């Protein structure tokens, strides 16, 4: 199949995939016991009023009609209004989305910075002391439950040694105008470096938690990938030609070793979207994970569906991009 047909096909496939996810979640939601109206308004309101509210929200219509309405609105980009927050789901998500993004991206960056160089060193000095120690520690770190690690960091760094604030999104003493919603970027854009420094302190522990758990994978994959590439013929050829070792590593080996790392990146991102729930809970960061949790607890259908839809879009989009990159970058891949 030609490349552009393949790319087109992959992009087209996004639609049915999305549809299936949305449908599944929609029907699961409506199977849920628990009436969101009753939860919102409490138990003292008489039933007649509850019925009325439910009618106004359209929750008493037959389910297939609700489903069709939902799809129609989705296509228009309307994710509905959250029962709990009384604002559009999209607005609410836009509000908290940068927090999750910041934690996720920062964490991944940190794990890359920590993990890949380590992996490269391990590959180059295979069997050496660094390699062995890394391997032992990797397995240990990677087996840690993220919520436990987060708690321990919170106890020691935050409480016992008082180095970092134990929870919260950012320092409230600085009024940074919100541009992207991500505190670090906004602080830089406002050129308020004092604020940046202060606010970073709130982010260090979440980032560290993410990084410590993900780093082993990056170290490992970069090590394995590099070793794999180093054993290839063209490397031996290059060496035989007398090319400097450094060039061999950087120009030939690393370039080709990158591809699996990119897949890993996409995978990490996806995993993190789901995994930030604990971090947000423990460090009191108002992000998507907490939003989802609250939505689930309160049976806020629109919110849950909205968040799932957004996650689905991101994940499917990301996967498609990765597949396309692979197809383009590696001519050996058959499609």
């Amino acid at each position, binding site marked *: 199949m030609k490349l552009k047909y393949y790319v087109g096909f992959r992009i087209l496939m996004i639609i049915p995939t999305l549809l299936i996810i949305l449908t599944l979640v929609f029907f699961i939601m409506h199977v849920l*016991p*628990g*009436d*969101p*109206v*009753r*939860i*919102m*308004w*409490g*138990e*003292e*309101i*008489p039933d007649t*009023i509850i019925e*009325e*509210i439910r009618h*106004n*929200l359209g929750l008493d219509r037959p389910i297939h009609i609700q489903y069709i309405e939902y799809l129609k609105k989705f296509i228009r980009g309307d994710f509905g*209004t959250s*029962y*709990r*927050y*009384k*604002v559009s789901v999209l607005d*609410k998500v836009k*509000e908290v989305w940068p927090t999750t993004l910041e934690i996720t991206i920062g964490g991944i960056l940190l794990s890359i910075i920590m993990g890949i160089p380590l992996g490269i060193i391990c590959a180059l000095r295979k069997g050496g002391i660094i390699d062995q120690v890394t391997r032992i520690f990797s397995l240990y770190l990677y087996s840690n439950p993220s919520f436990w690690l987060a708690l321990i960091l919170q106890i020691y760094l*935050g*409480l016992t040694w008082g180095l970092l*604030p*134990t*929870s*919260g*999104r950012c*320092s*409230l*003493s600085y009024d940074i105008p919100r541009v992207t919603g991500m505190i670090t970027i906004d602080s830089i854009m406002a050129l308020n470096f004092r604020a940046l420094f202060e606010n970073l302190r709130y982010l260090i522990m979440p980032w560290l938690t993410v990084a410590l758990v993900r780093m082993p994978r990056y170290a490992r994959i970069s090590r394995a990938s590099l070793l794999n590439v180093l054993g290839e013929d063209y490397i031996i050829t290059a060496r035989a030609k007398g090319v400097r070792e450094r060039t061999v590593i950087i120009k030939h080996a690393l370039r080709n070793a990158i591809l699996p790392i990119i897949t890993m990146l996409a995978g990490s991102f996806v995993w993190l979207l789901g995994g930030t729930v604990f971090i*947000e*809970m423990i460090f*009191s960061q*108002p992000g998507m994970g*907490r939003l989802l949790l*609250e939505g689930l*607890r*309160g*049976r806020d259908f629109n919110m849950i569906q909205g968040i799932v839809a957004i996650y689905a879009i991101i994940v499917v989009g990301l996967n498609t991009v990765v597949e396309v990159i692979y197809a383009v970058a590696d001519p050996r891949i058959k499609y």
Partner: protein
Amino acid sequence: MMSNKRNVYIIVAAVIIIIGLGGNWYLTEQRKAERAEELLAEKYEQWVVWSRTIYIGTIASDYHPGIAIGRGNRNYLEGYLRGGKLLWVDANDINIFNPSLAESWEFKVNSDGEAYVEYKIVQGLKFPDGTDVDAEAVKYTWERERYELATREKHGETYHVYSMSTGWKRLEVPDKYTLLQFLPEDNQNFLPHPFSFIHALAHSHIVSPESSETYAKETNAISDFANQVGYGPFLLESFVVDQQSVLVPWDDYVTLGPTSGTTGPTKVTELDKVVIIEYADATSLRMALERGEVDIVDDTIADVDYQDLLANPDIVTDRAPAIGYCMLFHMNHRPEFAPFNDLDFRKAVSYAIFPEELVEKCLFGLGSVADSAVRTFQPYYLPVWEEIRSLPDDERIDIAKDLLAKAGYPDGYSTEIWIPDNIDYRNWATIVQAQLLKIGIRTTIKSFESGVYYDEVRAGHAPMFFRGWTLDYNDPDSELWYLLHSSSDKQAQRMGYNNSYIDSLLERGKELYDPTGDPAERQEIYEEIQQIMFDDTISIPLMYQDMYQAWNSWVEDYVMWKTTHTTCMGVWNARKVIPDNWETTDPPR
């Protein structure tokens, strides 16, 4: 010759450089000194800003600041800072009602024989948005609370349920500052019982009709309860849901004499801002308090944290005993839940449950054992359960086992305890489960998500469940009516209890209420009711919860209210003191 010249040049260059560096250094030192002074001034400025902002910490709940003043949400915090009511329970004496937005209230009967309460609203006040505070605003507020949505067609419907939002049949506004609250049919005999004006007293913060209608039209929100403007000492400046709300003092606020009780706003506030910050859980909240990130926490901090904070010299704590919830343990009296309708069975359970353990392990001592559904400080309190609870533990268990056998279950029984999805209920249920196991009653704890729980319990399906009640006014009727009267769907109907004799006693007790002094008959009535409650083991009172609060020691002139759920009202009068070591430290925020 050449080298000499070069040397001279070098020397000259060196001298110039040295002078330049020296001068630079000197100037830098001077600049540094100036800069240091500037920094110090800046720092002081920071501390001043800090001292004029109070941060209150609370735990996030189903709470939207935009609708804080209306009904339908559980967080009382902001409602009290931004809203005003017709009358208030006094801050220090639960028996006193202070007029606020209502100057007076009087019970009357009109020519048609209808009983009503006549309120006279204080004249000449205006809401922050400029509209008048008048009887129409009160009517609007009360009616909207009942109907939740803007459907006006429901006027005139009579509710036979004594619910907070249904304590009136209709409302009339004969003139701008007079409101007539017509009492429901079944309530005609109960003037001048506080129950009649419970609505004015309990929850409703009067809102400006125009602000509520405007916001609704602008945002097309599901509920047009958003962004109400009330008559309170603070205004809402901004908010981010589930994170924080920022309140600023309202300059035109008129302190209405004994508004909000004797510790209400009595002076112009020294604060510029009050920020309410929400935390995800009790641990984060406590950490924030100890680090100084918040100045005051409301009563959502955990019992265990409060007890621990007693040892912290930087934290001030205060506590009001037995003012919080009174928790009871209900068993369903309906025949399909046999053998719960067997007195011996219920008595067995009553002997087996040790509320002391609940108070110790769940409340951490921030409460006391309840020996009656009536509270210790209420009139006609009779500790009917005290006797069996003062028996030695082994004896209680033995008696319980005997009673169980007598009821026909010598080998025990299996049933369920139903709880909502809430950590406190879970803890209580776990302990009660262990206690019942000792006499052979095996229970499974079934937890429901809150909405489902309400529905199921209201429908009377729950076999065993917990139920709490807060105090609205200082009369035993406040607890007992909702607990036992057959019309009450709060507790009585949920446990399927229906006794016409008790009904008649309760009604008579309510009728006989006299604010100038109760007749002796009333004492007999309520003592009899409590005795019957014990003799028939209608329901088992477990414990009273205390109200408590903690704040950092640099907050001064702050007083915790001890009579009802009016946490943090004292913020208006409070101020923060800049610590002595301000030069060397940074403000916590």
